[in-house]
């Protein structure tokens, strides 16, 4: 099995064995397969791309084709121990409402996102006066799915406003894990474990 992306590896490592988890925007189901096969997690997925859903079904995974902006509402309260949203928050129509849904269907939520305040972004904008295009955000402004760019500080503010608890957070530059100090400058992306 290929190595998981670092944010997914962190999530996989911290999901309790035998728990129930919903991976929102599960793609080809890499994280779900690891959770199921290595930790006995009852993993379910939601994915908007029908071809990715097909590939998940072929791996024996239970995945529903759906749009997280709309279809998370179909799950009952407390349906899962964890709701997982990796690198997708910034594509939501309303990230604040999606966060509410995640913490409604899941008792806890893992959320990972690219940090728009990383120094390379700031430098790009400062020097070029143009929307940054980097290895983590490689698509031009007009065709990117990332319609709600967010920074570590913005996200912390949203959590505080919503009264959401941060149980843990992890910050990364490439493959390397960073300390929380200066994360809003230094981190390319962040992973949070949240609870109500």
């Amino acid at each position, binding site marked *: 099995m290929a190595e998981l992306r670092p944010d997914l590896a962190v999530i996989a490592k911290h999901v309790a064995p035998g728990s*129930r988890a919903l991976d929102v925007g599960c793609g080809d189901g890499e994280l779900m397969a690891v959770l199921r096969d290595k930790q006995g997690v*009852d993993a*379910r997925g939601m994915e908007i791309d*029908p*071809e990715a*859903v*097909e*590939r*998940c*079904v*072929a*791996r*024996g*995974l*239970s*995945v*529903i*084709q*759906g749009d997280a902006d709309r279809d998370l509402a*179909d*799950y*009952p309260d407390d*349906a899962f121990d964890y709701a997982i949203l990796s690198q997708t928050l910034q594509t939501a129509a309303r990230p604040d409402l999606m966060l509410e849904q995640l913490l409604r269907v899941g008792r806890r939520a893992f959320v990972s996102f690219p940090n728009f305040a990383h120094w390379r972004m700031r430098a790009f904008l400062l020097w070029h006066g143009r929307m940054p295009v980097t290895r983590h955000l490689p698509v031009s402004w007009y065709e990117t799915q990332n319609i709600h760019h967010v920074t570590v500080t913005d996200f912390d503010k949203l959590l505080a406003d919503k009264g959401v608890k941060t149980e843990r957070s992890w910050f990364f530059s490439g493959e390397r894990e960073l300390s929380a100090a200066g994360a809003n400058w230094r981190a390319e992306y962040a992973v949070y474990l949240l609870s109500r």
Partner: protein
Amino acid sequence: MATVLSSTSSTVLLDKPLQLDSGQALDRVTIAYETYGELAPDKSNAILVHHALTGDQHVASPHPITGKPGWWDRMIGRGKPIDTDRFFVICANVIGSCMGSTGPASDAADGGRYGMRFPVITIRDMVRAQVALLDALGIGQLHAVVGGSMGGMQALSLAANFPERAARVLAIATTPRHSAQNIAFHEVGRQAIMADPNWQGGDYYDSGNTPDKGLAVARMAAHITYLSEAGLTGKFGRRLQDREAKSFGFDADFQVESYLRYQGLAFTDRFDANSYLYITRAMDYFDLAEEHGGRLADAFAGTPARFCVVSFDTDWLYPTAESRAIVHALNAVAAPVSFVELSAPYGHDSFLLEVPSLDRVVTGFLNG
């Protein structure tokens, strides 16, 4: 040259009367069925395929009347998505039908044909008969139940009413209940049959006259609902049939008229009008939630099965929203369920036609 898949045609006579939802019981029930492949010694590899309204048990072998390939020949066979090298595939003619299982054309206890004396049946009654067949075959839990359209209704009904009988449930292009629009189209068909003077209150079997005109019109109306508008436009547009100009008459000027007339007529060669009345009625009565206290999720409470629900984007007969209602109910009881809306141009009939993505989903789900 394609090799014909070897199949076994059998019938079983149920030793007990079949208790029906109407409160009546049906005595001396015969079930005609086909099997393909080998049943494993531990009987763990059986897949029950449910057929649709006008389908039959000849799912992957030539139709005895028309000689055409089985209706799901592309899905079932050696190396196909439902692989007969691995699975023992069973397909039974539903009760009420006319291809060997007990229906209105069968003989009643008094020696005459049932006709309209045949009891009104439900989808659940069809499933009860097939579960009795499984009992007769000594098959406890199926590897999977699979069905499209009315076959999907049976698969869902089996999962809801006999949850221990299937480990996997694959429901394609189907619905948890018939909508007002679904019922309305069926009523058009039934009224066409009953308006045909040859119908004779259903007692036409020994008269030498069968209500072919009414049955053909019923099939024509239904056939439109199986296709997409884009599909009809692509296939026929406004093109004329074997002529240069409109006739200013009521001949089949348009290709689409000629096509529907042919479909209607061909259907009367292989289908009994009374069976059409009874089976459409069963579909119209189908409401899985109603059977379970009005809440669809309760139909699936405690189900041990894995589910896969598939819809098609051009199916307006049982649109994706109906499949989502099934998925919603399964989510509410935390059942493992996959759902995908596949893109295919053929409308409701997509489940029968060349849609490679369906093959991949079926293969993946049955082997996963």
